[in-house]
């Protein structure tokens, strides 16, 4: 529910499914440009609790000026500073301690599967799963030692390749220490209607493990029974309805594809008119595949 202004410190370097896209060459942004963006994000903050800044785009610990960028964010007044990181570097206790001491209170790691085999294969990083889990645990333990309040979240890009493992992936993130997980539907070839039960099961896996799950890229009508997990209820997103939806018979009622619709919807804290009846209609024929809710 807390909003972060995302400031890229590089491009094409974030962890993603290599079977969906191979990705381009990673580039670093100029330090002064990033610093200017951080300052602007802090200066223009108008979203209540904050200003909150997240450094994104590439693995931040590969940026040679990371320490300077963190210091700059703190200097200009960021209240919450988040790193989108694979957390591997945080496996070294001295790095975890230095990161916390510098002012980082939030980390968000990307997970592509519930097992080392699946995550490493999709990420194209041998040993990546183990390194991430170790890094997250070290970060949490280090924060506890210094009684520093920190928040750990996970981000799961949802695609054809990890869809059926989502409940397990959420459970793995929860067991690593994440108290929230963001599922982002990015795969343009994913058929949302058939994916919805897996997304719902992943949300329930989060609940039974005490971890909050939010879903981006799914319209209200395709979340029967788990509407509360849709991200646009909590913060403005580009559209309550994913562009991936495509033309749909429900469009006349489920008109969230209009840019800006989310603002009016979220400001009223209410789902769009008739949305619940849409959800009820769509839900007929929906059921979880057997045994997909994981953990507990």
């Amino acid at each position: 529910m807390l909003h972060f202004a995302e400031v890229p410190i590089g491009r094409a370097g974030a962890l993603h499914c290599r079977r969906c896209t191979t990705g381009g060459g990673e580039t670093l942004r100029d330090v002064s440009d990033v610093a200017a963006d951080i300052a602007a994000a802090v200066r223009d903050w108008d979203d209540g609790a904050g200003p909150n800044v997240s450094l994104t785009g590439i693995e931040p610990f590969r940026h040679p000026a990371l320490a300077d960028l963190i210091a700059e964010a703190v200097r200009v007044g960021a209240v919450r500073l988040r790193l989108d990181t694979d957390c591997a570097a945080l496996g070294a206790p001295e790095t975890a301690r230095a990161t916390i001491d510098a002012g980082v209170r939030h980390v968000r790691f990307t997970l592509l599967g519930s097992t080392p085999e699946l995550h490493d294969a999709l990420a194209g990083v041998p040993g990546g799963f183990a390194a991430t889990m170790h890094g997250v645990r070290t970060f949490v333990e280090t924060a506890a030692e210094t009684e520093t309040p920190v928040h750990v979240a996970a981000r799961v890009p949802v695609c054809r390749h990890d869809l059926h493992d989502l409940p397990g992936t959420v459970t793995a993130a929860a067991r690593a220490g994440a108290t929230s997980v963001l599922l982002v539907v990015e795969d343009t070839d994913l058929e949302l209607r058939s994916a919805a039960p897996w997304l719902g099961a992943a949300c329930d896996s989060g609940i039974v493990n005490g971890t909050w799950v939010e879903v981006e890229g799914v319209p209200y009508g395709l979340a029967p029974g788990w509407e509360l997990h849709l991200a646009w209820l909590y913060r403005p997103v580009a559209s309550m309805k994913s562009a991936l939806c495509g033309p749909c018979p429900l469009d006349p009622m489920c008109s969230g594809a209009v840019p800006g619709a989310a603002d009016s919807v979220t400001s009223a804290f209410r789902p769009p008119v008739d949305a619940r009846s849409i959800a009820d209609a769509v839900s007929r024929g929906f059921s979880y595949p057997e045994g997909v809710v994981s953990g507990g």
Partner: protein
Amino acid sequence: MAEEPLKVALVALNRPGYQSLALGYLRAYAEANERLRGRVVFQTLDLTTDVDPWWVAYRVLRMGPDVAGFSVSCWNARAIYAACSIIRNARPDIVTVLGGPEVGPVAEEVLSENPAVDIVVRGEGEETFAELLRVLSSGKRAWMVEGVTARDGERIVSAPDRAPIEDLDSIPSPYLSGVITPSETSSYIETFRGCPHACGYCFEAKGVAGIRSFSRERIQADIDAMASSPGVRTFSFIDSVFNLTGERLSWLADVLEPHARRGIRLHTIEVDVERIGDGEAEELRRAGVVSVETGPQTIGAKALEASGRTFHADRFVAGVSALKRAGISVECDLIIGLPGDDPFDVIGGLRWLLSLDPGIVQSSTLRVLPGTDFSARSEEMGLMYDPKPDHSVIQTPGIGFADMRRLEVLSNDLGISYRARLDRPAVQSPSRPRSSGDRAQVS
């Protein structure tokens, strides 16, 4: 040969770090009672809620008491019932006495369901408990004591209610009398009893209408004793509303200011935030207050009406803003599961509070506590809740079971996320204990 005095064990299961003020009052009052002098001796066991009932029983049995008295709240009731059962089996002759907001309003039910409990003290306990001890030490029948529910053979008998103590100064201060030694993490002062509000979920007033205050001389003496105790740098007030009136607030600030100048700080002071402007915030700052606790509990119109609460968003915002300008952290509370609210009301409340950025946002699941309006009207309101302590709501007409759990997990994560920041509050303070139910962590 002189008669052996009655040995009384007073037992509380507190949140870690706390001492029971209720037991302190009971003991201080009884020890000052001329008619009990030399006839009763006390030992107090301040244990914590994480102690296994077997070890609670072990500690009590090792003291070898004639009477074991327990202070019962919703969060420790199950453990106390279990400990009483163990004690009864090991030493059937020990008289078990319960008191507190969890058992008083449902005394006959408690005795009916817990054969190991002998007596329940209803309502305000000091006078009733002292009279009960006098009766027990004389071998007379407990059920004749006003304010007591007890067994008479197979029957459960309730004596008439006892009127509330009019002159609170007749209750000696546990601090001034040396019954409780103030400590850094567990010291709090009560300056009045009662509550100006009558919220449907709360038992703060304990069924007694109006406000009864200790005298100002007594309050000042308690404050001076607390603030001068070695090692005490922070303490709190247990009052339902610290800013009861503007004049009283100014007087308290006058009393507290000299201590504040020495670095004594007050935390988690409960305030009516809608009656706070820059002047009141300045008084609080002058008193050494670093954090306050307030509602709104809900911003949903239907739930506010069902709860008998009022809420004016503009005044609330003004109050929070004034407190923030004075450098005082504000802990805003929401209750999940109030009748009339739906999930979007709760989410709306969380979002709205975040927009204020008060300092701490905390939420808890509704507990339908004995003696409350909600308890009496639960069927009419459609509240499904656990009839056993801690009485957490299971579902309501507006929020189903799954959504209730979702909102709990969401608000817990929000609390962790919100708290993880660089501008931490000046003092990391323990929450003050409550009589209206425990709170889930969301700060």
